[in-house]
Structures are given as C-alpha cells and as structure tokens.
C-alpha cells in the first residue's frame, strides 16, 4: 500500500508548474479570452516539457506524470485541452469524451481532427470542422465538431481522457482552496482577518477535506486504471462524479469566502470557476454522470471490501 505519486511523476509535474507559471499562470487564461491566439504559446511549452511525447497508456509512471501534469494545468485553468491531447493516436488526433446528443468540445479549434466517443461506449467518431465557439463567459472556447465519420476509438482511451480531466479538476480545486485561504488570512473586517471567525474556518475546513478526499480518490483511480485499463470504467466515472460534486461545493465555498471579489475576474477564483465549467458540463453534468455510474456499477460492480449484491 503506497498512495504516493511516483517521484518521476512529481518531478514532471513540478516542471509543468514552473512552466505554466512562467506563461503567466491564471493570467494566461484571462488573456486568452481576449486574444484566443495566446493559447498557441502553450504548444511550444508542452513540447519543451516533453509532455507532447508522454503517453499515459504505456506505463504507470507515464500515466501518473500525465495526471499530475493535468492537475498543474487545472491549477492555472490552462486554456488548452491537455487531457485530450495526452491521449492521442498515431496521427496526433486528441481523444475526448463527448455528449451523446452533440459533439461539443472545449478548444475544438486547436486541432484539425479529433477522436471522440460517448462515455457509455455507444458511439465513436473521427470528427473535424470546429464551428463557431460559443464565446460565452462559461464556455468561451467550446464549439461543436461538424464532420463526423464513425470509427472505432479504443474505449480505454476515452476512459483515460476522463481520468485525466478529473485530475485537471483536482488541480483547480486545490488552487481554489489555496486562494480562499490566502484571502481570508489577508482580508481585514471588523478589525481582524476574517480567518479568525469560526464560521469562515469551518467552511474552509470542509472545502479542504473535500479536496483531500478527491486527491486520494484520484490516486486510487489512477492505480485502478493502470491495473485494469478500461475495466476501470466504473472507477473513472465514480471519480468524475466525485470531482463534479466536489467542484460544486468547493468553488461555491471559495467564491463565497472571497465576498463580492469572488465573482470578479480580477481575482483568480472567478477565472478558475468560469474556465472549469466546460470540464464540469462536458460530456455530462452531475446527474447524468450519476446515472452513468449507476449503470456502470450495475454492469461491472464496484471494487471494495465487500462484493455488491451479497447476502447476510
């Protein structure tokens, strides 16, 4: 039993953290919204980091390095589909899970072709032809892919991409708690830091415990996927569901603890909360993901101390 990420993965992630900070950190997401071409800077940095040569499907250490790097991307709301791009095919096409009803992808314009599939394993395509981005505050870079050619996409790749997206969310939530902690320590009201109020402390503690739990679950799911591949579907959907529910609670708390600043783009918490929305809604939001998990657990079971469906 060892829940700690391998040292090699930690080193890769540390390098990614420094590189993303050099790009401006969360500031890059801010600028990209105004000038989408800013996102192109990221490609060269990923190459320098060696992330464009990393294949999470080859071995557990590469998988851990990919996951930890995605967490770093999430920490700064990196405006780039890192999880999808890490799970690419030999032609360099990224892989992404999409909604059943519409092939909507975040940053779809950054690649000419994509491999897409539904999380229930029911359909998969090679897709291209990114349409106009939504351009909204919650989905600035989300657009639909229009040219779909049915093809077989390894379902394990779809599962792997979703695993990495959850790690991305983990990084964003860890930063959200850090930002809130900094804010309540420095914000003075009634003559003292608001961190001295127990109501504030309790909210912060609950958020931190949620994120700590998500990190452990993310590590466990990483291990499950590296052990059994796509047979870890239920585990990965469980992680996604927990990441979504954690995000709903933690972003809300961390914004609240910022007061009105929590919804102002001058503050990183607002950018993080907005830029993570596509990952939270695509390919499925909380309730749909819970139904997907119910189906997966019913079909595949759920690894634990006791087999499901046992008798007294």
């Amino acid at each position, binding site marked *: 039993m060892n829940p700690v990420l391998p040292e090699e993965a930690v080193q890769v992630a540390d390098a990614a953290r420094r590189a993303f900070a050099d790009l401006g950190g969360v500031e890059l997401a801010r600028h990209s919204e105004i000038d989408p071409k800013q996102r192109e800077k990221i490609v060269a940095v990923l190459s320098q980091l060696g992330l464009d040569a990393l294949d999470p499907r080859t071995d557990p250490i590469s998988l851990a390095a990919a996951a930890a790097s995605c967490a770093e991307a999430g920490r700064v709301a990196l405006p780039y589909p890192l999880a999808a791009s890490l799970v690419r095919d030999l032609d360099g096409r990224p892989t992404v899970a999409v909604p059943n009803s519409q092939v909507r992808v975040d940053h779809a314009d950054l690649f000419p072709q994509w491999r897409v599939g539904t999380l229930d394993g029911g359909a998969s395509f090679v897709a291209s032809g990114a349409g106009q981005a939504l351009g909204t505050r919650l989905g600035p870079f989300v657009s639909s892919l229009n040219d779909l050619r049915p093809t077989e996409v390894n379902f394990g790749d779809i599962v792997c991409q979703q695993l990495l997206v959850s790690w991305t969310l983990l990084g964003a939530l860890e930063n959200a708690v850090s930002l809130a902690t900094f804010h309540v320590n420095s914000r003075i009201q009634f003559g003292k830091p608001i961190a001295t109020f127990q109501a504030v*402390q309790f909210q912060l503690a609950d958020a931190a415990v949620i994120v700590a739990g998500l990190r452990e*679950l993310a590590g466990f799911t990483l291990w499950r996927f590296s052990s059994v591949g796509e047979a870890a579907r239920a585990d990965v959907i469980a992680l996604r569901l927990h990441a979504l529910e954690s995000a709903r609670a933690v972003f809300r708390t961390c914004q609240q603890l910022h007061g009105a600043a929590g919804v102002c783009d001058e503050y990183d918490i607002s950018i993080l909360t907005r830029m993570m929305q596509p990952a939270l809604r695509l390919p499925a939001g909380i309730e749909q993901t819970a139904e997907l998990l119910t189906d997966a657990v019913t079909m595949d079971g759920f690894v634990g101390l*006791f087999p499901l469906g046992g008798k007294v």
Partner: protein
Amino acid sequence: MDFDLGDGAADLRLRLRGLIQENFGPNFLGAFTTNPSDLEDTNNFCRLLASEGLLTLAWPKEFGGGGGSLWDQTVVREEMWAHHEPRGAQYMGLNWVGPALMAYGSDAQKAFHLPLIAAGDVIWCQGFSEPEAGSDLASLRTRAEPVGGAYGDEGWIINGQKIWTSYAGMAQWCIIAARVGGGERHEGITMFLVPMDSPGIEVRPIRSMLGPHHLNEVFFNDVFATPDSVLGEIGGGWSVIKTALAHERVGIARYARCERLLSLIGAELAPHWQDLPANLHTAWVRALVQVRVARLLAYRTVHAQERGEVPDVAASAARIAVTQCDQLVAEVLFSALDHRSLEAGSNAPLRGAVEDHWRYAQAATVASGTIEVQRMIVAKALLRGESV
C-alpha cells in the same frame, strides 16, 4: 503507487470472516443489547482471537503481540466494525489503552495490565468527559488529592463526575483523567488506572437512542487509588490523552460497516430493488463513492503513521469524512427501506442492522471529539500554511 493491501491482508480478512461466521449467528448486532449472552459471546470471541494470535496482532512482540503491521491492524478494525464489533467493548483496551500503557506505563503496570488485555480477559472504559468538560476537555474538574505527601506516597482520593462513559457498566477497569494540585487547563491533569469495583464508584446508565450500555454517568465519591495507579507523570496526563485520542480517532473503521450494508441492500430488497426510484439508485452509488473516499482518507492516515509521522491533521480530515459518511449512508439506507426502516429485530430488513446503524450513526459526529473540533484542527493547520 499501489493501493493493494497485499495477499497477507486478503488472507487475514478471509480468516477473520470465517471466525466471525463460525462464532456468531446472523442476528448478532453487537454486545450492547439487553441480551446478556451477546456480551458473553463477545468475551468468548476475544479469548478465541487471543488463542489464535489475532487479538493483539498489531501489538509489538515485546508486549505479547503479533508484531503485525499497521495494515494488519487496519484489516482487523475493518472486519470487526463491519461485522458489528464482535470484540464487544474490548476494542477500546486493544486499540488505545494498551498502546497508552506501552508508551507511558511503569514496568509493573505493563506486566499486570497488558497480558490481561492480550488474553481478552478485561474490559476498559475511559473517564474523560465531564458534564462541564466535553470538547473543552482541559477544563475537567474531577480532582485527585494525594495521601501521605504531595506525591501520593500512600495513594490518592478521587472525587468527581464523568459522563458519556461507554461500557462503564460492564468494565473492570477505568482510565480516568483527574486534576492534581492547583494547575489550570492542561497543567495538573493526571491519569489514573482504577478498578471499577472500587468503593465509591457509582455507574448510572443514560437512556439513549444508541441502546443499552453505550452511555453512562460515573460518579467518583472518595474513591481510593493506590500509589502505583498513576499512568505516566503526575501532571503529565495531557500527553497520555493526546496519545489516546490519536489512536481513537482512527480506531473505528465506520466506513467498513457502511460499505457492507450498502453491498447487502440490493439483494435484501430484490426483486424490488430495480423498481426503486432512479434517484435512490444514484444516491446509492454516490454513497458507495463517499465510502470509498472515507476509506482512502483513513488509509492515508495509516500510511503516514507507517512512515513514523504523527498525522493529527490528516486524522481529523479522515474523521470528518468518515463520520459524515456514516450518517449519509444511514439516510440512504433508510430511504431505500422506506417505512420498513422503522422495524428492528431479527424480522426487520437486514435483521435490524440498518435500524441499528442509523441510531448509532447519529452520534458519529460527536463521539471521540466532535466534528466541530476536527474542523478547528483542520482550519488552523490550513491557516498556518500546512496542507491538509
């Protein structure tokens, strides 16, 4: 990165399940019932575990234990709690009174008490909380006055009242915190090991939704304690309490019973399980995920202990998750059972295990340190810049 506890753990788990199945009927819901044979069965089971080398598996060999790993200990805790703690009240002696004796006891205390615990022959209770000292334990008022000089050369006289004392009515020994001298707060607190049949001790059961034996008031009226009954230093009791609470906070694997009941509920309600509303099914899988998270947070704490760390903050984080999970699962199971959740006893769904679980879960966020205290510990660590 590896979350497999290993073949040894799997074998141990199967062995324990086999022993439980052989020695307890399907109606067993713990020792704290109105049926005296349940207590007798658990005492017999402790002796059996002792003879099999399993009762003190994780104790160091020098103290008569099996020298097993913290993970062996974790498996034992999980299996025992999942199956309604067939060690009865003795888990307290095993999980932390014993380790506290190893850390702070004199040679004579170790030689006398540890073999009794290891043999499964003794039940301990803890006299910590008082009517005016709950979460603020350091404000306790029970006093111990020395006899024959300031250091109690001829013994001690203890006066005071303890409350919420589990198993006091069945325990042979009590580890009690009392104040010595004029110190305030943590100063002067001293631990005593006192036989529960000492003259002047009166136990009054408190009726509660948890069931019999769980909660009691214990009155100490001029109770004499021998000079050698002090555990640790005079005035050094706070360190002993911290050691005890650190063990206690990770001691109960509540998530294991949650997981077992969640695994059983579908078959229990078959063939109607599939007909339940969809939101009950999603609540069930959500609960499965929460239980997994709680277990992993507990494992994180064990892993830190294994590396020699004192994971106070991690233990508090795990405790918050585990106790909330206990109550969440209770509600999910009750929702699945609907009106049948009110039934108790052997004819009730899952032979009353869900009803029993719901009642006991109500105190989960209070027992062994309230969830508010755990939140304070976590928050203060965060605000100091530590990770949680």
